[in-house]
């Protein structure tokens, strides 16, 4: 085998290695993403865990909106006769 043939063979092997590594990495990422994503749970869940997923949705809502304790937060009040300084209307 000539040096040129050896070099070509090394390039071919390297190409295969890069391709296999990329495919494995993508597959691994997809698997991790799918397993770890809460939205995928109902697709593989039993009836019991589907209920759990619905509860998680409620929890997520409470977490996002952050006001689960009724009456704990009040940031508005009557403006009286004061003129508006700014508008909350569509633009």
């Amino acid at each position: 085998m000539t040096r040129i043939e050896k070099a070509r063979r090394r390039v071919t092997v390297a190409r295969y290695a890069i391709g296999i590594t990329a495919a494995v990495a993508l597959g691994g990422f997809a698997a991790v993403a799918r397993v770890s994503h809460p939205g995928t749970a109902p697709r593989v869940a039993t009836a019991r865990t589907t209920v759990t997923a619905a509860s998680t949705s409620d929890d997520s809502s409470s977490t996002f909106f952050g006001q689960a304790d009724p009456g704990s937060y009040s940031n508005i009040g009557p403006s009286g006769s004061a003129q508006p300084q700014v508008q909350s209307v569509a633009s």
Partner: protein
Amino acid sequence: MNAFRAMGCDVALPYGVPVGLVRALFEERDARFSRFRPSSELSRVNALPLGLTLVSGEFASMLSLSLDAARATDGLVTPAVGGAILAAGYDRDFVLLPRDVGAAVPAAVPSWQSISLQGGGLLRTETVQLDLNGVVKGKTVDDALELAGSGWVSAGGDVAALEPVVVGLPGGDSIALHDGGLATSSVAKRRWLAAGVPQNHLIDPRTGSSTTSPWRDVTVAASTCLIADVAAKAALLLGAAGPAWLDGRNLAGRFVAHSGAVTLNESWSARAPKTLAA
């Protein structure tokens, strides 16, 4: 009052705050998240709407918030709505949109659950055109207020405040916002026709079409502008169920019907009982 235009809306803040920093923040976010700038990161991400895409840390952070919003609203406020709004004809800056864009066909909105993030890796298992407008403006108003350090910041119906400010509401009423956020979602503006059929910018993910909600404007008060904005959109989309949905989350909401009639939910009435119909 300082004012400038960014993200397709008017931005205002009082004198005495660092307007240059705030303006730079809005312009940076607009450059990154605009649907209408070919050079934006969002446009680059949407150019390959399926599979694995690498995104910046800021993009990932905003998309993560969008997915949180989708989860919290059972998918009503979703970043997966980009394809449907394009199909409705809203495919360019609104000022450039013709009055009638021609026939529009509703496009099914993919599940937000087909989108996942791992660090800077975005994976879409269905073809999804992203639209992060549901969170970018509200989050930017909150971040701008943090930069300002005092006063308030207003942008296109969203107001965030560190000190009391009187805010005008749709229909001519007003409210005192002591702190936190106040946001109005509305279909009164950004309306167009598709082959004679009225369209608006608020797509209902359940139908893939512009919402036909009985509400024209929904205003919500919350601890942040981001939360208020997301809740206002969801409540508007929910129609008649909107007021109770907000009450269930202890959020104050003010609803204006297309006729101009005003409805306050229990949380709003308890906090601002003198705010009556316009």
